[in-house]
């Protein structure tokens, strides 16, 4: 295999391994724990490196993962004292641990292999140079094997405990009633996240691993609410950005990790803007159409309440409901288009259809029952567009 393909493979597999726990972290509102873990594994890595002298050693990964879990435990301990809120607890723990790591590195500045830049960025470009040699035969880069092992392990766990994970993510009460301990699920997930973070750390660095964990899941969450689809989509987003990022980095000759994140960022931006029904544009459109619907309803109710010609004259309406001219006109047009009103000699009156509609709306407002609005939903759709 050429180094280029090896790098792409490592990046893609890392992205997939990060995306799977990421989905659950995002759904459980614990996305920032990944940020905390990715920072606070640093002292674990430094100490592990001092002992093993090998950045890809499994012992180092284990040690670092343990320090990730210690972070989670520490955050929970602080939170349990009730002295500060959870987010403050996270924000206190990881910078302190990270500082310890940075100082440890600075104290051992002679170990050139581990410097602070590598911690932040990782060095994907050098990954193919560290080969795994079994019985004298070169079987490929070490980190490729490590991350593949972690990905397979994650997938096996995911398949084995899919049901339990799903239940404990969406309904903690139900899951404990069914006998799956939410605590075990929580720590299991945290352990997987820690191990993945450490392995990915080698490839993309301490902070960018957060991007690989959160972004694909967040983007997928904007597109679907089905857990299986969300998992598949986030793996797809992660791997495709990893490969896209590699080529982008080659084109402009910059950090691979940085450009993978940038590609992920662009992907998220596009989905954030254009996702059907949950993207920014869709939400804004929905909000403005709802606003017009409410205005229309107000307008019809106003007509219903007033019988005198004076109150219903077009010129008077504008000042009475206190609308701007443009808004008043667009509501008036909308009502006309839907045959809710007729304008006769500058006096507005409700049609039979408008009358029926208004009565239904009043009934809904008074009783506030959902059945009333059920068939209204179809009516409301008429006004859109």
């Amino acid at each position, binding site marked *: 295999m050429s180094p280029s393909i090896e790098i792409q493979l490592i990046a893609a597999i890392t992205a997939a391994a990060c995306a799977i726990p990421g989905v659950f972290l995002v759904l459980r509102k614990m996305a920032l724990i990944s940020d905390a873990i990715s920072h606070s594994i640093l002292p674990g890595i430094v100490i592990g490196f001092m002992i093993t002298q090998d950045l890809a050693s499994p012992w180092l990964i284990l040690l670092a993962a343990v320090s990730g879990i210690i972070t989670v435990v520490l955050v929970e301990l602080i939170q349990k004292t009730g002295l500060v809120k959870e987010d*403050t607890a996270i924000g206190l723990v990881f910078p302190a641990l990270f*500082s310890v790591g940075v100082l440890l590195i600075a104290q051992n500045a002679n170990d050139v292999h581990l410097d602070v830049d590598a911690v932040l960025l990782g060095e994907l470009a050098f990954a193919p140079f560290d080969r795994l040699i079994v019985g004298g035969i070169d079987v490929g880069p070490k980190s490729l094997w490590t991350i593949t092992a972690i990905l397979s392990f994650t997938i096996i766990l995911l398949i084995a405990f899919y049901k339990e994970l799903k239940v404990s993510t969406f309904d903690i009460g139900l899951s404990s009633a069914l006998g799956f301990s939410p605590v075990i699920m929580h720590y299991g997930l945290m352990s997987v996240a820690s191990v993945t973070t450490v392995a990915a750390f080698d490839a993309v660095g301490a902070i960018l691993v957060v991007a690989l964990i959160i972004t694909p899941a967040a983007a997928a969450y904007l597109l679907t609410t089905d857990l299986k689809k969300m998992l598949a989509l986030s793996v797809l987003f992660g791997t495709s950005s990893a490969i896209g990022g590699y080529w982008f980095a080659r084109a402009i000759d910059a950090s691979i990790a940085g450009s993978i994140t940038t590609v992920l960022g662009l992907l998220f931006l596009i989905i954030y803007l254009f996702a059907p029904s949950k993207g920014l544009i869709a939400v804004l459109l929905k909000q403005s159409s709802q606003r017009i619907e409410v205005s229309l309803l107000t307008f019809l109710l106003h007509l219903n309440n007033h019988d005198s010609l004076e109150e219903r004259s077009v010129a008077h309406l504008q000042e009475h409901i206190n609308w701007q001219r443009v808004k008043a006109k667009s509501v008036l047009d909308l009502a006309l288009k839907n045959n809710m009103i007729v304008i006769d000699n500058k006096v507005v009156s409700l049609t039979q259809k408008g009358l029926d509609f208004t009565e239904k709306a009043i009934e809904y407002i008074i009783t506030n029952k959902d059945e009333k609005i059920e068939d209204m939903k179809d009516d409301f759709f008429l006004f859109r567009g």
Partner: protein
Amino acid sequence: MDITQYFTDYTLRTITLGTAVLGAICGMLGSFAVLRKQSLLGDAISHAALPGIAVAFLLTGAKDSNILLIGALVSGLIGTWWIRGIVTKTHLKTDTALGLILSLFFGFGMLLLTYIQKQPNANQAGLDKYLFGQAATLVESDVILMSTVTGISLLVMLLFWKEFKLLLFDKNYAMTLGFNTKFIDGLISFFIVLAIVIGLQTVGVVLMSAMLLAPAAAARQWTNSLSVMVILAAIFGMFSGVIGTAISASQNNLSTGPVIVLVAAVFVIISFVFSPGRGILFKQLRLLKNRRELELQKTLYFMYSIVRKHDDISRPHAIRILNNFQGFTKGTLSQLEQKDWIVIQGTNWSMTPRGFDTAANLYNSNLPEQ
């Protein structure tokens, strides 16, 4: 290192002053971040500021720290604005939004930084000081800038004190009173971003959030009053800066930023353990005291239940008959005697009228008065 160095060594004096001022402003504004439950916003913003620094450098080619800081400010504000957009317009939660902005902006910033490093421009070196901060690069003009910003934010804080306080604790009430909550909210956020940005050069992107949080979290433990908390947090922040600088100057290979953060963490630990009202230590002590008190009352009530059966309440009983009851020890007996509730004579005890009354009203004393 000795104390005279602070007056003779220009660099040390500048750095100490700089970190002290930085600690003070961060503590002050951090209090608001912590109380608004936006502790991690600082982390996200400080990371989000990185691409701004890189873009400012790419556009101007200058390494003037003021221009770079303006870039950082702009991109920090864009980050804050986008976080708010994600939270209000989509169903993604705050933690996801923070993590997204943090990592995506930072990644983009790193991309730009590595891109800049490959450019044939001699000026580029030193941009990475914004990653971990280098207090050693602080010069007098930086300290003046920091002090000016601190002065302005202090002024604004005093001017809008009432509004800030109201918004912190009861946003809806502030709205009904007719305050422009959006404006006040934006104002607080703006100053938090500003504090983060001016701290980047000193402690760096990664550790900036701790500067903001730690002094405020420590101060919170000592008081329930906002003004006291803000002042205390500023003092804690200042001392973290000064002590951290002194420790890192006393030894080689100790970067200032991480040391300051660790000093601040020590402040937090001390506050968590030793603060009289909320601290873990005093909470435990109170718990123990209450438990003992209960035990004493249990013993007294048991005695009362024996005494009640007799006409003469001061009739002596053998201590032995208390044996099947677990709550008593020699200590509790002598304590009961000290309180003048019982009298001990040899192996007998007898209840005093006072003890009888206390025991009779034991479970009524906590009832609300009728």
